[in-house]
């Protein structure tokens, strides 16, 4: 197959959309931190990082939350426009939603809006309060997401069961051992130990500890399941022309993207150890003109270790069947061949629902802007592979980001 997916915006063109700022607050359990309070905080942090004020923003894209329908309604009905004082001038505010891959689709949306002139300066906002929510309520809610009520709900399936089935199929297909799977979580923890915003910043983790933790859903141990967390982050995109006008010298652009929606419910996936990644990757490389070995970092959705190893193989970073052993050899670690999930990922920075993918994306932008704290900033970081997946791993979404000199 040879599909051509041309990006109709040349690098450096006036309408080429660029990322110019990010904001984030700590991930973990913060019951006293309000939903709107957190959103306001990350909005202001991202705007400050971009050298902007709320009045510069004409479009707000909202990443949904999963903890509360009432809070969701506040987002949908433009509460943040008023909170930021831009009611009366803001052109458009709306939600983008595809679960864990929302951030990838939000970038595509913002990119299209800016490139075509529907938007000038776009603020993307995310907040989740999973860490403070009732755990049983969240488990039940998640047994209905990406799971058809009439066909599969009666089996008693839920998110850890889905992760466990993917993990088992991956281990069967690749011959990966329990130790090799656990090593993925250890790499993520090594990164989290360098990220003061991560839920497990101060807690190291070993393979032995993981394998000694209780079995939750065979073959997943409790330390291999994502910790539900509160978290919020934001980023700002504008056009190259606007960025130049503002005197911004370096920014981040989208070199290309690729995607594949491979199923709705997991039972309809033809190969749980492959998913949609190979086709998504082929489309992304075709659009960007660069490949897996040109990247300096990877930020790949990691609600379970196998979710990431399957993606790494489909993307072409690791050989087929070698994803877990790639991690066990330290390739994704700080100082490794390809630093992977440098914020600690969902498994160690914290799973903020739909926001887990957003946090990985924000970290990718931060690394490319060279604004990560020195202890985890990847030297001369120029290119990043961002990978997301939503629902029951229904889709594989890839964004290829690159640092760009604007020559203001």
């Amino acid at each position, binding site marked *: 197959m040879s599909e051509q997916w041309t990006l109709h915006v040349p690098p450096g063109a006036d309408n080429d959309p660029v990322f110019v700022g990010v904001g984030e607050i700590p991930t973990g359990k913060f019951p006293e931190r309000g939903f709107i309070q957190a959103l306001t905080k990350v909005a202001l942090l991202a705007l400050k990082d971009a050298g902007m004020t709320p009045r510069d923003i004409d479009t707000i894209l909202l990443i949904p939350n999963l903890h509360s329908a009432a809070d969701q309604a506040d987002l949908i009905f433009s509460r943040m426009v008023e909170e930021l004082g831009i009611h009366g001038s803001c052109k458009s505010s709306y939600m983008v939603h595809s679960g864990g891959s929302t951030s990838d689709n939000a970038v595509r949306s913002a990119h299209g809006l800016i490139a075509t002139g529907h938007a000038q300066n776009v603020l993307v906002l995310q907040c989740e309060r999973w860490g403070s929510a009732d755990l049983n309520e969240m488990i039940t809610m998640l047994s209905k997401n990406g799971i058809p009520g009439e066909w599969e709900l009666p*089996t008693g399936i839920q998110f850890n069961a889905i992760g466990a089935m993917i993990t088992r199929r991956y281990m069967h297909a690749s011959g990966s051992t329990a130790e090799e799977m656990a090593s993925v979580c250890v790499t993520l923890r090594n990164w989290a130990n360098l990220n003061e915003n991560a839920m497990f910043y101060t807690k190291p983790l070993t393979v032995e500890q993981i394998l000694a933790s209780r079995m939750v859903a*065979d073959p997943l141990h409790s330390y291999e399941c994502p910790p539900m967390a509160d978290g919020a982050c934001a980023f700002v995109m504008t056009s190259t022309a606007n960025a130049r006008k503002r005197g911004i010298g370096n920014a981040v652009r989208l070199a290309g993207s690729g995607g594949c929606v491979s199923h709705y419910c997991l*039972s*309809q996936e033809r190969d*749980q150890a492959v998913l949609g990644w190979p086709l998504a990757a082929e489309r992304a490389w075709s659009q960007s003109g660069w490949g897996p070995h040109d990247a300096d970092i990877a930020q790949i959705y990691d609600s379970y270790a196998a979710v990431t190893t399957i993606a790494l193989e489909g993307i072409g970073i690791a050989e087929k069947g070698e994803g877990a052993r790639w991690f066990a050899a330290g390739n994704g670690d700080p100082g490794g061949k390809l630093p992977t999930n440098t914020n600690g990922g969902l498994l160690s920075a914290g799973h903020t629902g739909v926001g887990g993918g957003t946090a990985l994306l924000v970290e990718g932008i931060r690394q490319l802007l060279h604004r990560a704290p020195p202890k985890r900033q990847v030297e001369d970081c120029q290119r990043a592979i961002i990978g997301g997946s939503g629902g029951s791993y229904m889709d594989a979404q890839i964004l290829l980001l690159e640092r760009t000199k604007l020559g203001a």
Partner: protein
Amino acid sequence: MTLPTIVSDFRNGLAAGKLLIQNCSDCNKPNMWPRYACPHCQSENLGWKEAAGTGTLHSFCVLRQGAPEGFEADLPYAIGVVKLDEGVQLAVRLEPDGPGDWSSYRCDDRIEFVSTSAAEIERRACATFRRARA
């Protein structure tokens, strides 16, 4: 709430000890899960055929904690994805080897449909499979 016919037909099949697959009366292709129009030819002329009840186990897990509301008493339980010999797939419950034990199961094992009582289907409207005896 009234169940759509494709759902009640499928569940009535299970209650009668049969695993039904939706079959398109125009292109004759099997569909699973059942759909409102054939995903292959878009026909709305859809019927049923009884599955042979045999297939391979693509993957499975044993849930030991964190059951959704209403499933707490079932723990532990095993869920699997079956590739039926007819070429369609579905999620099922797996019969244990013994109480709380599914250690004999492996991916790609041959497995077979086990009929369950109408009362059990009333409680849990899903198919159950076990390792093939043949």
